[in-house]
């Protein structure tokens, strides 16, 4: 049967999917926080793989809905960019988890708590910003700019943190293999926050365009 609603737009569906994608990104970071908070526990990949798969499924649903839908409230390129950016968050978290798992012997006892705090703050901010898309229009720009500024600040803190850990790693106090492994891991965590920043930028771009 010909469905006019299907052809003309499913704004709520897109917003729901984007919110779901942001939530999955947050789930993967929460799983990572739990794993890193208990360093003696045996890390398994299941939860990270599931989060990434769920995110992938949502990204596919968005792609398909974009093809089927004639009119979207938000520009389709913007929806695509945001969806792709959100997908990269759990993907990078999964990559970190894989490397963490294979280097467990080298990184035992490493404190990632500062990174975890920033990761939690960044993903919470992304979820809140994506939810703001339901109310875009006049008067929302200042609010989203303030939220984006907060996200940029978190990203700035992550940049400073990587310098702090490199200062220690390059001090000559550590064995070189450990330096290589930990640098790789720290940079992946920084990349997760960069991905959150990219998502925040994509949301801000949409709000600016629609304000």
């Amino acid at each position, binding site marked *: 049967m010909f469905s006019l609603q299907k052809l003309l737009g499913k704004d709520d569906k897109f917003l729901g999917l984007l919110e779901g994608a942001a939530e999955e990104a947050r789930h993967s970071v929460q799983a990572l926080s739990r794993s890193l908070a208990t360093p003696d526990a045996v890390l398994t990949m299941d939860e990270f793989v599931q989060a990434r798969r769920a995110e992938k499924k949502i990204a596919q649903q968005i792609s398909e809905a974009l093809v089927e839908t004639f009119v979207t409230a938000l520009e389709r390129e913007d929806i695509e960019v945001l969806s792709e950016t959100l997908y990269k968050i759990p993907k990078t978290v999964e990559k970190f988890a894989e490397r963490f798992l294979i280097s467990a012997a080298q990184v035992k006892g490493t404190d990632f708590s500062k990174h975890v705090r920033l990761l939690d703050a960044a993903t919470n901010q992304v979820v809140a910003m994506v939810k703001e898309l339901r109310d875009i229009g006049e008067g929302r720009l200042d609010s989203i700019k303030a939220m984006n500024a907060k996200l940029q600040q978190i990203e700035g803190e992550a940049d400073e943190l990587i*310098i702090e850990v*490199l200062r220690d790693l*390059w*001090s*000559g106090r550590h064995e*070189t293999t450990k*330096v*290589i492994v930990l640098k790789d891991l720290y940079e992946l965590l920084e990349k997760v926050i960069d991905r959150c920043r990219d998502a925040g930028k994509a949301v801000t*771009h949409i709000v*600016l365009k629609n304000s």
Partner: protein
Amino acid sequence: MINFQRILGREDEFFTLLEASAQEGANAVSALKRILNSANGSPSLKDFAEARRKDKELTTTLEEMLITTFVTPLEREDLEELGVALYKIPKTVEKFAERYIIAAPQIAGADFNRQLPLIEQAIQIVLKMVHALREGDLGDIKGLQNQLQALESEADDVLTESLAKFYEPGFPSLRAVILKELSDLLEKVIDRCRDAGNVISHVLLKNS
């Protein structure tokens, strides 16, 4: 009241922002030269952070103008791409400087004097190319782009020579790890200049 100038275009402002952005890249490279030449001073990150912060502001303004301006002098995707490419120059220079400073005790005597002149030449070419954009002057743009490509290729060779040294048996491993990271970052600065040059050539050719 409807502001037609706002809707229809702010051509001059776009070019001014792009030129200022390229200039911040050049300022960052000047600061890089000072830091690499101050053998025993205590180098500061202030100049780098300032250049990158200003460039970030310029890029953000450019991106907002692209959304709020109805007619742009060049295609908006091209302007956006060039803005991002130019911003990455001071950003990469700052990244190098941060790491160079914290690694100082481990890399005493390290010599980056072969890479620095290549970077200085590359950023000067980028500046010339951005100015040519305002005039729509295709003139020698191909020649400038070829010079950038040649510099980038020379930088690749310099990096390979450096790596050969770091990989020699007996070279201190931590020093090798750090110097490789720093050398890679300097090469990336030239890559960023080449990227900006490629966007400008593309834009000028498209609009010639």
